């Protein structure tokens, strides 16, 4: 026999963002508890609103089955005396299990031989097990921030108001803080006040919907999307995609209704980003764009209550936005009274990082570094634009608008640069230098912003690494992981061919001067920072190839990121081929011999006069040919051809090992063979370190 199980935790309004994750945790905890109690069950689904977290599990059995398990006693050594008689340890264990010593069996365990007994555990009724399962679940939910209330010691994200636990028609008794479970739920705070009894779990979703609560997250989100889209259409526009805003709004309401409002047209001359930010960031209104993508003087608010007279509440929504836009306009007008370049000196009073100094100092380093990068990528004609953009890149940090909306940094810099008569390319670069902001963001469409942005990020990375403050597993306050990936995306996305190591060195020079670091400290920071790049690249390229292949390719160098990526893609193409693993095995063998035997062998080319077998001569010729080919192909950015040339050595290598014994008695011949194999190994060196390829991971060995 089985029945559906419903558990609802009723709360005061939870923070948007905490709702859905908590409901998922509740589901996982309840399911883990059911499994732990051996209570079979069907599928589970969650419900989550600002005022409730709930899980409904179908067909939870009403009794756990009988089960046998092995109870482990003392070790055999400890269980019997020298005379073979059972010790106290053995008799006590037998007693505790209600059995005679003779009933105990010897079993092998990883720690040796032990006494054991099969114990039959009788199944238990769900009514005895479920209170523990649900109680542990509500106590086990984790939140980023917890709080206490009243005089209770327990904590939750917000005070718990009620608990609803039902198995079939039976209440599951659960206690949390000052709340005892029952069969009551509560509908919408205002539209359906008062407790509502739930007869059976299956009634729950329908009952809530009649009580003006759309408890299914996906359904509620869809209703908002549909309503918002329809409202935008009424205004002759559309709502831009903003999944984060939609998620937030979904977690702020139980019964959404979209309301279309307006603001004064005169505010439309504010930059679109400012308008959108004013509407979305605090008010969580949806902006409305015209077909050309320009903001309309309209917005859509999502109400939690379908009020009696929408015009009355609309007055409030419009009023708040009006006062925010008036504030924004005030900042915009005030900020533009000062030419952007005149704000640069104010950066001397804005601390970027204690030891690394002010933003003024950072800007100074950015300019030097950006100039070096501009030369390195072969665009010296851009030097003037890049330098001006670097000078102005951070000037908007002292404006009122960015003080109010830090998210608008860069965008405001562009607007104020244009208003100050700066060249459009400079203005665009100021906005662009923050791109890409995240993994899904595009890189800038033009070079100046990309170069300034790269300089900014490299300066941040170099500074924090030189200070010995790399990010920890849990904390990355300066966003170094994002900065590092930003550099990689800029280099690859903009097609820059530059030496990453040299760029890092230029950046370290700048911060090294500020911090007064010596060559040894800079070298250490350089090594640590490049290791950090290696780690980020491994993570970034995890979807391009197997982890060991990525490591092997990175081990051959990533100073030129394009070449590294091209080599990786070439390997990824062939790594699944049947002959790849034997190739890797063969070259691993080569690498092993060179590694073990090569230490005492002077570095010089193999001497053909010492070859004794035709296969040696053949291999030497093949290796020299392949080496030339690999270098030629790599220089021509043809990684697949380079790899193909190197793979061509497989036959000669196999023939060599078949005919030749490297470890011959004759020292001169032996050393010469090691030298030959070293040449073979060096063919692969610029492509990948094959020793890191896991042969077992591939096809047949």
């Amino acid at each position: 026999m089985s029945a559906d199980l419903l558990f609802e935790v009723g709360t005061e309004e939870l923070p948007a963002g905490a709702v859905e994750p908590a409901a998922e945790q509740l589901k996982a905890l309840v399911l883990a508890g059911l499994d732990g109690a051996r209570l079979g069950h069907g599928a589970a689904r969650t419900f989550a609103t600002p005022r409730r977290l709930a899980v409904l599990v179908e067909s939870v059995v009403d009794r756990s089955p009988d089960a046998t398990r092995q109870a482990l006693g003392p070790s055999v050594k400890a269980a019997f005396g020298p005379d073979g008689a059972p010790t106290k340890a053995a008799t006590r264990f037998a007693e505790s299990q209600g059995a005679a010593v003779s009933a105990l069996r010897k079993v092998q365990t990883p720690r040796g031989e032990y006494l054991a007994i099969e114990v039959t555990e009788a199944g238990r009724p769900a009514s005895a097990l479920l209170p523990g399962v649900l109680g542990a679940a509500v106590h086990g939910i984790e939140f980023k921030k917890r709080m206490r209330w009243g005089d209770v010691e327990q904590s939750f994200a917000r005070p718990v108001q009620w608990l609803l636990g039902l198995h079939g028609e039976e209440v599951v008794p659960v206690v949390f803080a000052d709340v005892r479970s029952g069969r009551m739920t509560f509908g919408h705070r205002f539209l359906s006040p008062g407790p509502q009894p739930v007869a059976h779990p299956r009634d729950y979703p329908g009952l809530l919907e009649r009580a003006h609560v759309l408890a299914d997250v996906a359904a509620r989100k869809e209703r908002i999307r549909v309503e918002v889209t329809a409202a935008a259409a009424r205004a002759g526009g559309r709502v831009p995609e903003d999944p984060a805003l939609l998620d937030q709004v979904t977690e702020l309401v139980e019964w959404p209704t979209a309301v279309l409002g307006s603001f004064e047209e005169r505010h439309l001359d504010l930059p679109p980003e400012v308008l959108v930010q004013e509407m979305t960031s605090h008010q969580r209104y949806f902006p409305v764009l015209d077909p050309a993508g320009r903001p309309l003087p309209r917005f859509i608010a999502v109400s939690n209550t379908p009020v009696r007279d929408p015009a009355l509440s609309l007055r409030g929504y419009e009023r708040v936005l009006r006062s925010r836009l008036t504030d924004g306009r005030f900042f915009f007008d005030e900020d533009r009274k000062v030419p952007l370049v005149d704000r640069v000196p104010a950066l001397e009073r804005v601390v970027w990082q204690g030891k690394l100094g002010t933003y003024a100092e950072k800007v100074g380093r950015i300019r030097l570094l950006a100039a070096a990068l501009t030369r390195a990528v072969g665009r010296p004609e851009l030097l003037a634009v890049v330098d001006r953009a670097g000078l102005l890149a951070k000037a908007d940090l002292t404006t009122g608008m960015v003080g109010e909306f830090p998210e608008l940094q860069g965008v405001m810099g562009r607007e104020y640069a244009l208003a100050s008569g700066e060249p459009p390319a400079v203005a665009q670069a100021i906005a662009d230098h923050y791109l890409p902001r995240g993994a899904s963001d595009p890189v800038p469409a033009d070079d100046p912003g990309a170069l300034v942005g790269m300089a900014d990020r490299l300066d941040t990375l170099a500074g924090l690494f030189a200070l010995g403050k790399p990010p920890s597993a849990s904390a990355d306050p300066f966003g170094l992981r994002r900065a590092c990936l930003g550099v990689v995306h800029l280099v690859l996305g903009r097609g820059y061919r530059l030496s990453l190591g040299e760029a890092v060195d230029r950046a370290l020079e700048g911060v090294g001067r500020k911090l007064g670091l010596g060559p040894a400290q800079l070298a250490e920071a350089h090594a640590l920072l490049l290791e950090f790049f290696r780690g980020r690249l491994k993570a970034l390229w995890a979807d391009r190839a197997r982890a060991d292949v990525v490591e092997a390719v990175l081990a051959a160098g990533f100073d030129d990121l394009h070449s590294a990526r091209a080599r990786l893609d070439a390997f990824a193409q062939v790594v699944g081929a049947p002959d790849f693993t034997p190739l890797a095995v063969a070259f691993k063998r080569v690498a092993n011999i060179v590694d073990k035997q090569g230490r005492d062998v002077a570095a010089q080319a193999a001497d053909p006069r010492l070859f004794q077998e035709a296969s040696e001569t053949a291999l030497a010729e093949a290796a020299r040919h392949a080496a030339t080919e690999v270098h030629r192909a790599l220089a021509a950015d043809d990684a697949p051809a380079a790899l193909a040339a190197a793979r061509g050595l497989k036959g000669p290598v196999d023939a060599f090992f078949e005919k030749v014994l490297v470890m011959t008695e004759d020292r001169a011949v032996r050393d010469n063979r090691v030298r030959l194999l070293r040449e073979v190994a060096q063919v692969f060196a610029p492509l990948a370190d094959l020793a890191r390829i896991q042969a077992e991971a591939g096809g047949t060995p």
Partner: protein
Amino acid sequence: MTFQDLILTLQRHWAAQGCILAQAYDVEVGAGTMAPTTFLRALGPEPWNVAYVQPSRRPADGRFGENPNRLFQHHQFQVILKPSPKDVQSLYLESLRAIGIDPLEHDLRFVEDDWEAPTLGAWGLGWEVWCDGMEITQFTYFQQCGGFECRPVSAELTYGLERIAMYLQNVENIFDVEWVRGVTYGEVFHRNEVEMSTYAFRASDPAVLFGLFETYEKECTRLLGQGLPLPAYEAALKCSHTFNLLDARGAISVTERAGFIKRVRDNARACAEAYLKVRAALGFPLVKTGWTVGQQPPLLEGAPASKSWESFGAEPKS
């Protein structure tokens, strides 16, 4: 509803729940939270239920009476309920109905807002209460105060009176709010805004203010040494207000700012500790009144949080 009726209605509502109606604290504060009727009373195990209007001075927000939304001095209606009742949200919503905000006519929302006052070593979790997208109340469950865990937890409700009055009266400018029939907020307070803003931004003497800061700081420490946390706390508040005046005057650089805030916080913390010691020595006398407001359901799990003070002695528990 006039500004005055708004105050009277809220007072009547909370008095009916069993709150003391305190009068505004007569030392300059930036918020109702800073009055000892909140900051000190939130400490320790004793119950406390109070409502009062607190004129709150924020020198940097002064706009010479020229901005329709910002004031040097505004008025907060402050409610403290300790321990926080189980039905505190309902009690609050009833107060909104009393002033004419019907939840079926307006979109009322509790939107996450975490509150922190670095100068007080205090933080809590709660909401901004939105009425049609507009913040009308700050609603906080105190978790820490003066660096001490709040056991039990106080619920703090801070109504922004001017903003609510503007909304209820449908006026766009604070100074157009009707205080009593025929008299506006502007007629009562506009000149105050002009003079106080002028003082804060132009006429104050930073040298004098720096001197006052030092003096009040030392006075706070001296009074604490004599076991007098209440006058010491007044000195700490004066320090805090002096800091706000210096800040508005632009006399404190970005780098110095954190240091001044820490000095104020250290004093506030020391006052909190000294206050608790005095109350402990008195045997936390309000505990035996059993004074509560709203629903206080029995605990079903664990000991009451307030019991943790039984062992409070000379050592701070934080």
